[in-house]
């Protein structure tokens, strides 16, 4: 137990890496995923087809395979990345596909009449997006998006397998030194749980906040 406590600062360094990976992945995936999600909803046919293929393909493969592909596979065509970068890139690609579907679903849930009412008062396409579609889609977008953030935080443990010293790998290293697995895992479990519990709390709050908008 003492060993586990004394290695806490080391675990905290690992936690910091886990949080960094999560944050970067969420930022990239949200920005690119929302853009492509709007693209698949309103874009020209070629764009919709490309995004559809990308999204279906990525969601159809295990994320671990994607991480290994980016880190071990891409160097074959001259793309070398450090472990941290490779981890962020692979997880981002994976998450982008989820944010795309998330965005598409949220936009689709809006009655076409809202769009027409916006057209009828003379709002152009991007004004309708900003003032009508996005605010309405947001309430459908946020709860699954937060789940997606929680999934990223949990799923980021996989990046330990290519040698990113995140919370998971930090735990493994401590155990390797102390040969006392149980206390370290308990600390690790609690940390992972706290991260995700905070996220799911905020998800519930947001759902309640947007419940007033009815159609």
């Amino acid at each position, binding site marked *: 137990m003492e060993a586990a406590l004394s290695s806490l600062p080391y675990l905290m360094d690992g936690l910091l890496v886990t949080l960094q990976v999560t944050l970067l992945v969420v930022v990239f995936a949200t920005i690119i995923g929302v853009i492509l999600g709007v693209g698949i909803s309103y874009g020209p046919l070629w764009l919709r087809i490309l995004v559809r293929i990308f999204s279906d393909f990525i969601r159809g493969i295990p994320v671990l395979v994607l991480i290994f592909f980016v880190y071990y596979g891409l160097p074959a065509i001259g793309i070398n990345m450090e472990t941290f970068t490779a981890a962020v890139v692979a997880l981002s690609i994976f998450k982008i596909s989820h944010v795309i579907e998330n965005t598409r679903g949220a936009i689709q849930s809006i009655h076409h009449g809202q769009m027409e009412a916006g057209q*009828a*008062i003379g709002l152009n396409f991007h004004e309708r997006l900003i003032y009508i579609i996005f605010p309405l889609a947001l309430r459908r977008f946020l709860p699954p998006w937060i789940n997606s953030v929680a999934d990223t935080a949990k799923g980021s443990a996989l990046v330990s397998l290519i040698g990113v010293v995140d919370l998971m790998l930090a735990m493994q290293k401590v155990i390797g030194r102390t040969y006392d697995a149980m206390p370290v895992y308990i600390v690790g479990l609690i940390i992972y749980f706290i991260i995700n519990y905070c996220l799911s709390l905020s998800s519930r709050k947001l759902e309640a906040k947007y419940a007033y*908008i009815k159609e």
Partner: protein
Amino acid sequence: MSHPLIQIKNLYKSFGDTEVLKGVSIDINRGEVVSIIGPSGSGKTTLLRCINVLTKYDKGSIKIDNVEIGYTNDDEDYRKERSENQLSEFRAELGMVFQLFYLFPHLTSLENVMLGLRKVRKLSKVKAVDQAKYWLQRVGLTDKINSLPSEMSGGQQQRVGIARAVAMDPKVLLLDEITSALDPELVGEVLEVVQKLVEDGMTMIIVTHEMSFASDVSNRIVFMDQGKIEIDGSPSEIFDSKNERLNTFLARIKK
């Protein structure tokens, strides 16, 4: 030389294999109130939606103030659809009220009316608030300016819908069966508002099933059947008409 505000010539529209408009022609002058009646599927709503290009027409011409609205040039064989931004500019001049209101559910009634004033008319916030309040007062909703659509009755929502459309100061107001989704006891309050706008001299095209209202407020009534205009005349001409289809239709809706 003065010209009709709206000139529709030989308009055709199909949805897939179904031809909904089969050569509709009609002129509407400034200040005129024209009601369009007819059985469901006769093309009334499609005609109305073509006028602000929410539905694109296939053949024929719609001119508003002598400008073709859906296409950039007159030659039917070589014409090009207008861009989304051009259409937005045209639509800003045409007010539309929908059967199912389609208020923006995340905005209060004041914000619903203000959105177009701010973003399309580019009014300052103060001016937009003033105008929006004025129109909400005109439709009798002064006490509801901060209510969300979900907190209002159907009749109140539809009156916000009307305020949102007329606040833009459109050249013409298009009303698409605006009382059809309302409980019977709420129809009166909405028609009263329309009546006041008629007295203001607003040009209107009204698709409706309210026959007595249509005959009260309209200069002309147009009876459509199977994608064509059967009869176009004054209310008394319409209701005295011997046209068989029209009388069948009128008999059916009286029941």
